[in-house]
């Protein structure tokens, strides 16, 4: 792992710098720079959690690409020879890529996004002018909400209730935004891990073939669902998918739960599959 960092540190620094700049530009360009009145009105559109979340979801695709571009040394026969003969165990080789691409990548991504969001807000707030007077807008800080991760990963309205006759302390229930954030984030990371692991199965054009196989997998899954819909719901027409929709505990929908489950569980399967493929990798 250390030799990888020693050799590729310039590349990694450039990726971090590029991600920082692109994240900033993306956030800054989406934040408002003008106000249309001299007081904050409730009807105004506030740049808040929904806007941050959309940008966060779009940005996480970049993390997926980084994760998907793992094992660059398996791209050609010459590099593969060098890589396979490096005196390190398969676990070390696999883990170093996982650590650098997934763990460090995700951590740096979260830090960069936070810095970008705060920086873009600060600059946008400083620049915000009231259109009529062309002066700095006094309520600018309220037009753009300050970014914090809880606005993405948690509902901001925490529901509290006390249990019977004071026998238990007051409990708080925090509703996780399953499908919108955790589920989707993990689904995207799962796609990244799919590209991370499946790439090991192809000798040439690994990333391209992995993407094609992913598309094929989605089509196969859709087809599977259509077939099951026709079997269990005979009224289903054509390529429609019929799913019964009901609410589980804590307000989580069953389909949301199913998507989250795929997102959370598939990395475990994909990682072990990738590890054994690397172990059996031949020139």
């Amino acid at each position, binding site marked *: 792992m250390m*030799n990888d960092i*020693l*050799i590729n540190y310039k590349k990694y620094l450039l990726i971090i710098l590029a991600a920082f700049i692109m994240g900033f530009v993306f956030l800054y360009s989406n934040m408002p720079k003008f106000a249309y009145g001299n007081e904050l009105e409730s009807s105004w559109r506030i740049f808040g959690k929904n806007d941050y979340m959309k940008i966060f979801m779009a940005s996480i695709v970049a993390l997926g690409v980084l994760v998907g571009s793992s094992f660059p040394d398996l791209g050609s*026969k010459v590099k593969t020879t*060098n890589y396979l*003969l490096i*005196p390190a165990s398969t676990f070390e080789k696999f883990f170093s890529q996982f650590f650098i691409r997934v763990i460090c990548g995700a951590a740096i991504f979260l830090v960069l996004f936070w810095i970008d969001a705060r920086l873009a807000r600060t600059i946008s707030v400083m620049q915000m002018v009231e259109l009529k007077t062309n002066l700095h807008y006094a309520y600018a800080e309220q037009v753009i909400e300050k970014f914090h991760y809880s606005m993405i990963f948690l509902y901001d309205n925490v529901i509290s209730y006390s249990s019977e006759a004071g026998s238990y302390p007051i409990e708080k229930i925090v509703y996780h935004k399953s499908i919108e954030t955790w589920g989707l984030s993990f689904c995207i990371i799962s796609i990244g891990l799919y590209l991370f692991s499946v790439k090991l199965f192809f000798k040439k054009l690994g990333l391209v073939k992995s993407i094609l196989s992913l598309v094929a997998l989605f089509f196969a899954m859709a087809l599977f669902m259509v077939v099951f819909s026709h079997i269990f719901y005979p009224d289903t027409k054509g390529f429609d998918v019929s799913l019964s929709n009901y609410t589980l505990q804590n307000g989580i929908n069953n389909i949301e739960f199913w998507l989250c489950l795929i997102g959370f569980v598939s990395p475990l399967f994909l990682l072990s599959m990738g590890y054994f493929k690397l172990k059996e990798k031949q020139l």
Partner: protein
Amino acid sequence: MINIQNVSFHYKKKSPLFNDFSLEVESGRIVGLLGKNGAGKSTLLHLISGLIQPKSGKINVNGFVPFDRNPNYLADVYLVPEEFGFPSISISTYVKAFSPLYPNFDQLKLYGICEEFELQITSNLNKLSHGQRKKFLIAFALSTNCKMLVLDEPTNGLDIPSKSQFRKILVSSVTEEQLVIISTHQVKDIDTVIDKVVVIENGLIIYQENIDQITQKLYFDVVPSITGIKNVLYHEQCPVGQKIIVQATDGNESSIDLELLFNAIINKKI
């Protein structure tokens, strides 16, 4: 030490390259692995290095199964492939990154060899010529002091002085505990350094002999004509007459013409 027993191997959708192949080589030798194109030389080197897995049979190198790619095994094997690539870094950075992976790495030896090959350690590897990069790779391989060095066409791309330097450095740096396997078409480049010849054809060993045994059995000479010479095993025309191989008699020994020997073996005259 290499012990290959009844190994079979074929690439996907291709006819078998090795079928029931066996070979045993002791440490402390420099082995010349010779053969025509497609004979399976590089494949054999890849099997020995652990880059590919035999379909059947057993390979044991220094007590390890190569394809397990045990880190301890990999730290004691260095392959100089025919085609190679380097990251865009300086020689010193490369050494800093990779030398810790080889426990017996000798940095002073590396700098000594680099000096002989006229390589600057501050040079960027990707800005060097192919021949210079090859020289660095050979220098690095020798400096690892691995128990087994596998060199695939090591003299390809080297200029004439470098080929001579390579021979000199190789002979002076290899110890009794090491085993060096050199696969090459350019047999003249290695004829003074090897002490065992292995010739393979169609996945079979058709000849294997130690150099001292060869010189005891065969006599190599250049004569104006073969007329009147008895027991000529093989001859080839050359500018001054004929290059010949005859049975050695009365303890007469000659230096080996490896190219002539190879041609004689391939033409099934020996």
